[in-house]
């Protein structure tokens, strides 16, 4: 089915985009890579009066590394993340996770900002940003503000972006020292959204113990969540599969899985445990090798 007609705005600068969004208010949808919004338009799940197409905003395509922080413009495509172009190669988790997104055509068009602002609960990139304690950079009529990932994803397809604001970039703190990451996900078919995905980041101290462990889960609740209780339990522990299994079995999992046609809530709980252990094992082994994964 064709999309319902809408007014189309293709601003050339962020300032123009913000002024269009300010004037149009809640009637406008922002179009980035279009890999989620266009099917929602053609299936008529959304019928905005206006679409603000931001593909011309070259200012949102930048990638730069500033010390231990990697800043990625909202319009950087999944394909660039997957290939690890330039400074993007300094975040191997991003590469590994981006390679799992949809199919090659989705990755050619889809953007990191689009994925984060769309906030699908099973999407990979929101969980990556959550596990790395990323910071979202929003621009609005009042200027720029930064939002920690923990406060950005507020629920199903919901973020703390305000009307009239545009997601401009994401900043990812990169670890210093011995660190390893991994993503493990379960899908029914190649290219599907994950039923559940687990992201793990393990940092080791000089003695080989885990100085910090972070875990984020996608697909087991309305938004990506951190397994804070397991993370706390693993701080200071010598990494081993046994230790990871024990921590995951003994501690509360901060997930709120629902049942749908793909999986029951119980099965999502099971996947969360299994995939978390696998991701931790792989992340820890990469950290021990000292090699970037």
């Amino acid at each position, binding site marked *: 089915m064709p999309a319902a*007609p809408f007014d189309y705005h293709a601003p050339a600068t962020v300032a123009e985009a913000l002024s269009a969004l300010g004037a149009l208010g809640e009637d406008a949808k922002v179009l980035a890579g*279009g890999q989620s919004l266009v099917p929602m338009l053609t299936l008529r799940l959304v019928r905005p009066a206006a679409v603000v197409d931001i593909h011309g905003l070259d200012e949102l395509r930048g990638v730069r590394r500033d010390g231990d922080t990697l800043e990625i413009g909202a319009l950087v495509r999944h394909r660039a993340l997957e290939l690890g172009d330039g400074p993007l190669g300094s975040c191997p988790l991003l590469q590994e996770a981006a390679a799992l997104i949809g199919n090659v055509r989705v990755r050619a068009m889809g953007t990191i900002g689009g994925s984060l602002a769309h906030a699908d609960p099973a999407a990979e990139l929101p969980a990556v940003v959550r596990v790395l304690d990323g910071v979202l950079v929003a621009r609005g009529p009042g200027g720029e503000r930064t939002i920690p990932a923990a406060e950005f994803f507020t629920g199903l397809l919901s973020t703390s972006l305000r009307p009239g604001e545009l997601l401009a970039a994401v900043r990812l703190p990169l670890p210093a020292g011995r660190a390893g990451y991994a993503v493990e996900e379960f899908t029914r078919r190649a290219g599907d959204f994950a039923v559940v995905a687990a992201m793990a980041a393990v940092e080791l101290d000089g003695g080989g113990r885990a100085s910090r462990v972070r875990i984020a889960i996608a697909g087991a609740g309305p938004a990506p969540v951190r397994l804070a209780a397991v993370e706390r339990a693993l701080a200071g522990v010598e990494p081993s599969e046994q230790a990871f299994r024990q921590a995951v079995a003994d501690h509360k999992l901060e997930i709120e899985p629902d049942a749908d046609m793909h999986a029951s809530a119980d099965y999502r709980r099971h996947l969360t445990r299994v995939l978390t252990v696998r991701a931790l094992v792989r992340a820890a082994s990469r950290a021990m090798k000292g090699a970037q994964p």
Partner: protein
Amino acid sequence: MTELIVAFTLNGERREVRVAAHETLLTLLRDGLGAIEVKDGCGEGVCGTCTVLLDGEPVSSCLLLAARVAGRQVTTVRGLAPVGSLSLLQNSFVPHGAAQCGFCTPGMLLTAHAFLQQHPRPTREDIRRAISGNLCRCTGYVKIIDAIEAASAGAAPASPSGAAPARRG
């Protein structure tokens, strides 16, 4: 509703068309320009049969607003070889029986074409991964993978030009 004039290149030929902003490239190509070699499958970017190359890169034409192709190069399966001939890859599909109903074939060929340009000597596993976003409901994929493998630079004998004369199946 917004209408725009969009100028772009389709299979090497310059086109200038009036489109509605809510129109996808798929409907423009099929309904507006008669490029019915681009197939209309799922409409959600999943099946891959509407694949076209945008500046050489495979994209789902059902998920691209036509307004976005201004100034870009769009290639459909007709653009892979001059009229009356087939590319090496297309030719390889024939003896391998890599097409049955043919509905997935245009997208499969474009995806494989772009992939082989980037990865001239792929493994079978690389090929499987490369076409994982293009669904075929007839062949079971084995013959498609065989055909792509045979058309790769690793296979002998390969045509250096990448194009071969038409052959009747």
